[in-house]
């Protein structure tokens, strides 16, 4: 059970930063479920659009979050929330607990988290030597002549399909590149 609200200190900053740069979007492995021990499962980060769509539906929000976020090696583990129907309530508790814990790491949302703390942690992660190549690639895909942020160019997906965690990591990388550019004027 989660005993603390979501904070970015659950993982080393450099590892957390890399989590959001994963090709195909951020996802985190779930522990084996007692009701399906041989099935490998992950929780994937949800986009703001998905989060709000779930909230708009109103009812059975946790069911919808679990159905949307749980993936197996082939893609969505539940084709729709209706596929949760056969899950025993006890098993649902186990799955929902694991998924919500994972989402606290893999799916930070601007509306829900301490943005300053996440920015600081991800910036620390972006400064780590293991992430230099990615950080400079992000910097290279940025229009420094005034075009602004274009995270879709780096991630290769439409902006609306990016999670807040990906945007946070992207902005953290840009701040690191920006600081270095200021420190070494051409």
């Amino acid at each position, binding site marked *: 059970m989660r005993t603390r609200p979501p904070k970015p200190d659950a993982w080393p900053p450099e590892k957390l930063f890399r989590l959001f740069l994963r090709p195909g979007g951020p996802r985190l492995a779930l522990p084996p479920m007692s009701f399906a021990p041989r099935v490998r499962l992950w929780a994937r980060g949800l986009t703001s659009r998905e989060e709000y769509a779930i909230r708009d539906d109103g009812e059975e929000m946790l069911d919808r979050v679990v159905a949307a976020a749980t993936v197996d090696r082939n893609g969505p583990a539940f084709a729709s929330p209706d*596929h949760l129907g*056969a899950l025993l309530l006890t098993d649902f508790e186990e799955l929902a607990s694991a998924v919500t814990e994972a989402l606290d790491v893999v799916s930070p949302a601007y509306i829900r988290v301490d943005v300053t703390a996440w920015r600081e942690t991800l910036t620390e992660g972006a400064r780590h030597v293991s992430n230099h190549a990615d950080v400079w690639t992000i910097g290279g895909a940025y229009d420094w002549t005034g075009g602004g942020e274009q995270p879709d160019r780096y991630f290769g997906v439409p902006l609306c399909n990016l999670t807040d965690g990906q945007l946070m990591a992207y902005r953290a990388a840009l701040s690191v590149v920006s600081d270095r550019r200021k420190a070494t004027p051409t």
Partner: protein
Amino acid sequence: MTTSSNPLGPKVRAGEHVSELAEAIFERYEARASETFEIDGFFGPGARPIPAVVVRLVAKFEEWNSRDLAKSSVKAIISDDDAKKDVGILDDLEQAGVVWWACRDPKNVNETAFPSPEWIAKTMTSEQIATLLRLVHAVRDKHGPSKGASKFTPDDLDAWVEAVAKLTRDDIPERLFAGLPFGVLVDAIVQLAGRCERLTSDKETLVAEVARQREVLAALEPVAIEHEQDSDV
């Protein structure tokens, strides 16, 4: 009454992709855990005594069905719009639905022990429904993952209070608390109520102390003025 053996109900369309996980879940659904309990003072239709029930774990679709039935029952029997939103009535009817799904006939577990959720809600007393619900929870606690549900430590609670306080400028998304067991949330509220009570008591003590000090100051003021006048002379 025989209940549907299709674990997904009518919602899943033929040919829809079913994942490896979904297949594992269906297998488990078929072999779900149950316990037999002797019960006293329960009667079925025609005053037929029901001396025992098999209580089995409830599935998600049964919970959804209980909620849907509760809503349609409320719509059918209540005309007042405000009453339709009464969470208490809905909860009672939903619990009757959960009891109906969970309690099975010991002679044939494919049959429910009672005729319908509406029958349970109409003919059983609140105490009887509560008794059966306790059995449902007992089976759930025995076979569920949340045995010995933990509580927040005071430090955990501080962290939650801090997180909520930071978010109060926005609407607080319910998902911040999603996945926390009901018992743990209740315990957190009890802990917070205790803190509020202590703070209120401390505040009252401080207010009383301030009032007492003001009285002392008021009593000393003439003496101080007199002393000042004497000094001037």
